[in-house]
């Protein structure tokens, strides 16, 4: 029987000891003497969040299929254990073997949101790995980052040996092979990094040099060695039906956020909303075969014993085989007492019909994401959802028995006016009116409309990457305005309003479009005690303020400063398929309030056509969307 890294006394003192035991159903155990590569996969947040992440399950499965590799997991110790580990000098350990992370060959960290960056430093620190890649020795693991935030890896450049840009299925096998053969030939860590930097999708920050102009913008971004590519190309799976899928996912003991079978139906999104990074970096949209997914759902329900199955995608309604798949799930899964959850569906007759079959209408609420309050603003962001669509959808839903509606909006979008802000509660009012038009006898009580706003954060590789981000004061003023306007609506009693904290959004804005110079701010903030920044109960604003002051870095340079079209952006060296020319065109069109059709309506030649797959190939004899860079 395995022995644990933590004593009984510690495990019985801390919250939820199950976070640190491993041993979950389908956790992979191997003999460490018999593997060549030990890979520790990390999600730098608490266990319940990290365990819910599909990407890690995919890579965990992919790596462990290799006989020469044992992939294990680690998550951020929660603050209670974090404190004890520091006090008692307990090194961070991987869940499966309970061995110190420091002894691994690789530590892979997935970067899903900017507000986990201090947790990245916590992981390195508790593991006893030098924070700076430059100070690591042959004995330290290679620290590799991936996930959406790796699409601007620069604010973390000092702390990572490598980054993987894109979908893991593609280049990881080559990377692991290269690692093994380099070691067999007696090559050093440095040798390996040079080899790795030539593998498609791998970025080794230490091999690139950045110089700056007097105004603080980037003057040049160049490889230090002629053999290292100047541009790093995103990796993507061209055929989702050809890659493996984790049909035996880990089943945790404690309740986690995603406590269900997850079927990834597609990657990418055809829509092209101008604020949305996922909609750009995962282009082109590629579907997984419904037949395959049906098999997976059967296998996975049997292998996990989960009582719910859910679909994962950016926009499920755009999945072309949705009706077949949903029918299948309702028929088979439904019979065995398995619930079906269908997130990210557009509200229309089809989805309402489906939802009425799979959920309790009285208890569930409908979600609309108009993102902006007026049609003008929605045109600017290219959200192809009209007021007519929303009101029609709501009316249909009300007629079907629903009375709870959630509405999601953003504040601080480019070109936003007072009219757009006030338009948010006004739209809610129109929805409420629709409800109260239903004869009293047929309604079920009051309707409940929840308005939520988040603050817009411009992200790399979106048409808004040049936009100036709003200030904190302005955000709060706008939230206030929404609240006031809501109180002036006739049906204000049916409405509720929540908004996000502005400080965290501003910080997210700094790191989203940041450069290497932010590494020192991050390190300072961590030293000042910042950790778990995405958890409001842990967020420590003063620690961050001090960090900026101590390093002399002005956050406004990264947030509210408007970028010129010519500026070299810190992430420009990455090739994600979507071209800068396309993004600029979209940026211009947004200023003119012009909408762009989605990939299925009319290809825009965004650049992702060069991968010759997915939606770019649909119903087309020839690929017409190439050569647009």
């Amino acid at each position, binding site marked *: *029987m*395995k022995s*644990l890294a933590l004593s*009984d*006394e510690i*495990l*019985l003192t801390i919250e939820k*000891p*199950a976070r640190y*035991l*491993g*041993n*979950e*159903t389908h*956790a992979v155990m191997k003999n460490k003497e018999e593997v060549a590569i030990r890979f520790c996969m990390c999600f730098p947040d608490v266990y319940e969040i990290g365990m819910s992440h599909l990407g890690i399950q995919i890579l965990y499965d992919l790596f462990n299929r290799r006989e020469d590799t044992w992939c294990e997991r680690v998550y951020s110790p929660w603050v209670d254990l974090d404190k004890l580990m520091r006090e008692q000098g307990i090194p961070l350990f991987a869940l499966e073997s309970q061995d110190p992370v420091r002894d691994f060959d690789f530590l892979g960290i997935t970067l899903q949101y900017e507000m986990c960056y201090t947790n990245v430093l916590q992981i390195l620190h508790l593991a006893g790995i030098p924070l700076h890649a430059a100070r690591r020795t042959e004995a330290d693991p290679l620290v590799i980052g991936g996930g959406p935030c790796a699409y601007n890896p620069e604010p973390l450049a000092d702390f990572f040996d490598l980054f993987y840009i894109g979908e893991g299925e593609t280049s990881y096998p080559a990377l692991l092979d290269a690692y093994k053969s380099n070691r067999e030939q007696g090559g050093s860590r440095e040798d390996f990094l040079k080899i790795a930097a030539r593998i498609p999708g791998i970025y080794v920050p230490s091999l690139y040099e950045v110089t700056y102009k007097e105004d603080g913008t980037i003057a040049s971004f160049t490889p230090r060695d002629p053999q290292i590519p100047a541009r790093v190309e995103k990796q993507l799976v061209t055929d989702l039906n050809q890659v493996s899928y984790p049909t035996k996912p880990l*089943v945790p*003991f*404690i*309740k986690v956020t995603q406590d269900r079978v997850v079927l990834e139906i597609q990657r990418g999104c055809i829509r092209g909303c101008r604020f949305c990074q996922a909609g750009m970096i995962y282009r082109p949209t590629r579907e997984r075969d419904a037949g395959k997914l049906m098999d997976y759902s059967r296998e996975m*329900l*049997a*292998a*996990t*014993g*989960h*009582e719910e199955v859910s679909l994962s995608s950016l926009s499920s309604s755009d999945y072309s085989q949705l009706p077949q798949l949903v029918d299948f799930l309702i028929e088979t899964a439904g019979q065995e*007492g398995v*619930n079906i959850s269908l997130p990210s569906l557009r509200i229309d007759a089809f989805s309402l019909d489906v939802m009425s079959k799979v959920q*309790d209408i009285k208890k569930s609420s409908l979600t609309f994401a108009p993102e902006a309050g007026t049609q003008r603003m929605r045109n600017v962001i290219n959200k192809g959802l009209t007021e007519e669509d929303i009101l029609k959808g709501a009316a249909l839903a009300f007629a079907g028995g629903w009375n709870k509606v959630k509405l999601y909006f953003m504040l601080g979008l480019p070109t936003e006016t007072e009219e757009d802000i006030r338009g948010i509660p006004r739209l809610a009012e129109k929805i409420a009116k629709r409800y109260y038009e239903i004869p009293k006898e047929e309604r079920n009580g009051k309707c409940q409309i929840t308005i939520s706003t988040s603050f817009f954060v411009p992200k790399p590789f979106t048409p808004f990457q040049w936009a100036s981000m709003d200030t904190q004061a302005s955000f709060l003023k706008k939230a206030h305005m929404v609240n006031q306007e809501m109180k002036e609506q006739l049906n204000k009693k049916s409405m509720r309003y929540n908004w996000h904290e502005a400080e965290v959004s501003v910080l997210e804005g700094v790191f989203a479009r940041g450069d290497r110079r932010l590494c020192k701010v991050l390190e300072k903030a961590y030293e000042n005690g910042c950790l778990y920044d995405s958890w409001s109960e842990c967020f420590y604003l003063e620690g961050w303020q001090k960090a900026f002051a101590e390093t002399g870095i002005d956050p406004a340079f990264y947030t509210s400063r408007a970028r010129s079209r010519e500026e070299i952006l810190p992430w420009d060296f990455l090739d994600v398929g979507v071209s800068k020319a396309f993004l600029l065109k979209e940026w211009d069109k947004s200023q003119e309030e012009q909408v762009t059709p989605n990939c299925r309506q009319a290809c825009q030649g965004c650049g992702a056509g060069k991968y010759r797959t997915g939606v770019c190939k649909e119903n087309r004899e020839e690929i017409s969307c190439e050569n647009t860079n």
Partner: protein
Amino acid sequence: MKIRIKFRKYGVMKFIGHLDIMRYFQKALKRAGIPVSYTEGFSPHMIMSFASPLGVGLTSDGEYLDFEMAEGLSSIQGVERLNAVMTEGIEILSFLRISEEKSQNAMSLVAAADYEVCFCPGKEPGIKSKGEECSAPSWKEAFSDFLDQPEIRVTKKSKKAERELDIRPFIYEARVDGETIFLRLSAGSVTNIKPELVLEAFFLYLGQSMEPFSLRIHRKELYAAQEGGEARTFVSLESLGSLF
């Protein structure tokens, strides 16, 4: 038909609390393809009941879970199929058919439990004496003196209130075996005496107080009471089931 399974909980699984063990079995029964019956309604759930929740940190050789299922597999198949999907730390010992009567529910039957209690190294009473020495040369002899008392009064804390209670009548059996204390204690919904309570009283008897994390507790068996004749006898919950 109604099924009772007996299982063992050991190793790292001792840190998994009762509610999570319930969730674990819900999923494990499905993985094993056991045709468990569900409640009616919009969100059906399995009808299952555990005999007696085991505290976090305790191990056990005698845990029980009752549930309803459709016919279609034998006792042996039940054990095999479940053990094939267990994680390390849970082992199914038997899979038996029990009476359909409500009063025969594991939870309502439990009347007594056997425990083995050890002190964690260095946590034995009397070793780390703080001023007051106890009269007996070792805790083992002191323990039999402790049991010889006509009554053992303790304050029992529940969520709502504290109350004084003489626990001596509820200690059905107690003896020292080597370094281990064996206890048979009253259990179940009427008077549930935890072994910690007995050991705390023992420390108090010695004029000491028990530090946290002093004990290692292992549950051996759960019993139902059988009245009949003059004396009450205890039969294990397992013995009320039958192979099929």
